């Protein structure tokens, strides 16, 4: 183990000093922040520049008292004014490219329930939706004019709503919105860890392959055993992955907290469930790291790898196929099958557990057992392949050779 740690430190140090690693380390969160803010900033700046000038023709004098107060809570980018001009006069008084609306609230229109509004070419399409907010106060006004009491008016305007309430032992069950977030945040964090360490895990492949190419493994193996070297690489790249998560969080977390300041993110993050999710991510890493370190020892020239090796490189991305079915039904057949396949299991479990209210503990138990068994098996096979493969200089190992090493 001491020797493995020496190798781990070395792999960590030499990658941390590597320029391309540093650039990708810093660039990823910056790009994330950029993509998260840029569209909002761009659309936001549009809103600030051009509010919709809403001119209300209000011969009955209902706007200021009866309607406008309803709109004060809605976040509308309107600039309203009451006018006495006719639509034609209003049109003549418009500037070019002005985003404006003429709203005719005359008595006839009110009583018939057919209100006409005139727009310019630059009026945003969203106005058609926003103007529906006026329906409720106007309907109420109509009912008031018809002589209904306040209770009767309330009965008509409120209509009937269906409120779902699930029976559950949990006290928090009533507040489903909060509960969902409480699950998704630790899930997203574990997913980030899995993504980061699997990505750095893929660097193990390169590291093992490069060691072969640079013919340095025999010198290294004169000081330690192949399993020390293999373990060291797995540990080193794990540290690297965790450093990556740390740096990403350090840069992105203040931004996320600022951007979503309505939610107590930190409170939702540090929950007991997080521990299990992280354990799943770590087991997933061990599986892929073992796979890549073994595979790297069979490849000297990455440009001439076989289809078989290419397919293994794609394995960490296999859960992507299952995202759709899992989102539509986290307990569906695809989700359950994905939970039991070792290569999709970590990502699928993290996704499902982030979505599910009630965790399927039996399934989790079976899946974890399969996963741990697979890690043990893959580590064993990778060890055998690594031991011989890392010293096979000058060519890529064929499938036949790999099978022979495994059987030996």
């Amino acid at each position, binding site marked *: 183990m001491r*020797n493995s740690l*020496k190798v781990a430190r*070395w792999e960590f*140090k*030499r990658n941390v000093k*590597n320029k391309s690693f540093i650039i990708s380390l810093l660039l990823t969160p910056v790009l994330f922040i950029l993509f998260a803010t840029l569209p909002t900033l761009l659309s936001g700046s549009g809103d600030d520049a051009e509010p919709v000038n809403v001119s209300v023709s209000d011969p009955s004098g209902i706007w200021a008292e009866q309607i406008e107060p309803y709109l004060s809570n809605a976040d509308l980018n309107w600039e309203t004014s009451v006018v006495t001009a006719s639509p034609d006069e209003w049109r003549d008084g418009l500037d070019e490219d002005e985003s404006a609306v003429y709203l005719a609230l005359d008595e006839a229109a009110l009583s018939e329930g057919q209100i006409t509004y005139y727009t310019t070419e630059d009026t945003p399409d969203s106005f058609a939706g926003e103007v529906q907010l006026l329906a409720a106060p106007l309907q109420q006004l109509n009912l008031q004019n018809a002589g209904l009491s306040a209770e009767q008016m309330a009965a008509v305007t409120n209509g009937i709503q269906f409120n779902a309430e699930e029976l559950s032992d949990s006290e928090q069950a009533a507040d489903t919105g909060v509960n969902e977030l409480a699950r998704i945040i630790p899930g997203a964090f574990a997913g980030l860890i899995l993504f980061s360490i699997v990505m750095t895990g893929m660097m193990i492949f390169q590291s093992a392959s*490069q060691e072969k190419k*640079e*013919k*340095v493994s*025999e*010198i*290294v*193996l*004169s*000081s*330690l055993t192949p399993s020390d070297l293999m373990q060291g690489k797995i540990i080193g790249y794990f540290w690297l992955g965790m450093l990556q998560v740390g740096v990403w969080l350090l840069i992105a977390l203040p931004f996320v907290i600022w951007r979503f300041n309505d939610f107590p993110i930190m409170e939702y993050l540090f929950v007991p469930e997080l521990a299990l999710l992280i354990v799943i991510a770590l087991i997933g890493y061990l599986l892929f790291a073992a796979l890549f370190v073994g595979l790297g020892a069979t490849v000297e020239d990455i440009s001439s790898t076989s289809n078989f090796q290419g397919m293994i490189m794609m394995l960490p991305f296999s859960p992507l196929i299952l995202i759709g079915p899992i989102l539509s039904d986290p307990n569906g057949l695809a989700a359950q099958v994905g939970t039991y396949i070792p290569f999709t299991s970590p990502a699928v479990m993290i996704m499902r557990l982030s979505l599910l209210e009630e965790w399927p503990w039996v399934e989790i138990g079976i899946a974890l057992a399969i996963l741990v068994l697979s890690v043990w098996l893959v580590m064993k096979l990778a060890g055998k392949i690594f031991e011989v493969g890392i*010293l096979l*200089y000058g060519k890529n190992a064929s499938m036949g050779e790999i099978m022979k090493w495994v059987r030996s």
Partner: protein
Amino acid sequence: MSEIALTVQSLQKSFKDQQVLHDVSFNVRKGEITALLGPNGAGKSTTIRSIMGILYPDHGTIKFHGEKEGQIPKHKIGYLPEERGLYKNVKIMDILLYFAELKDYPQKKAKERALSYLKKFGLEGKDKVSIEELSKGMGQKVQFIASIIHEPELLILDEPFSGLDPVSQEVFKEEIRELARNGTAILLSAHQMNLVEEMADRLIMIHKGREVISGTMDEVKREYASFKCTIHGLNDENKLKTIPYVTRVEQQDNVSVLFLDQNLKAAEWIRKLPSDIQIEEFRLDRISLHEIFIDVASDRTLAAEEEEKYA
């Protein structure tokens, strides 16, 4: 006689159905340079890799004196493999310190030694550059430093001179000698017979996995280094074979090479040469280690011995 550092006893190894080592045995002593010789494919690297624990022999023992049976004191061994390289995009000093760390050698001392060796090998000021910025020869010097940075008690060098220019060969030769003088036990495999002849205290020559010659350099020279006589002139091969002390004759066109018995007294033999031999040019030389090697590599000595056995 110097203390034994390593004993290799009856080493056997097969790959698939082919046996590549047959009962190879030898000792490596402290303060001595032992040369492991043999043509390509003789089993030198297999022997060395077995000593290093990189390959497992099918039979035989490897004993590091002062260590428990079957234990390889990796931190006391320096190893320069035949197929060697270094991490390309890492600073030289970082690589050297990493190898020292792998051998549990103190970092501060390793740094001092690294700087002093870099200076000695003409690489002063190169500690912060990466290997890819150095020439191949310079890279080999760094590899050599990496193998001795931790002051090994046993140094194993597999083809240390391959790819080196004559100046660098001299530098390496002098350094290897110096290490031996300071008590390091050295086992080296090489093809450059002249260098081995100048440096080695002992040699073991293997061919097709079998030990064919072994002993101290003096013993081997005494046993094998006899004379050969080259005669230019038209002569009958069978007639040349009848001359006393001639063990073998090689003839091509009008050049005949007579290999002579080691008990030969040269002056007397020349005086007694038959007078009817046609001699346009005549030369008498010592057989060098190089020729012994060529002889062994091309199976001629073995063939001659076999002929004698069944004659």
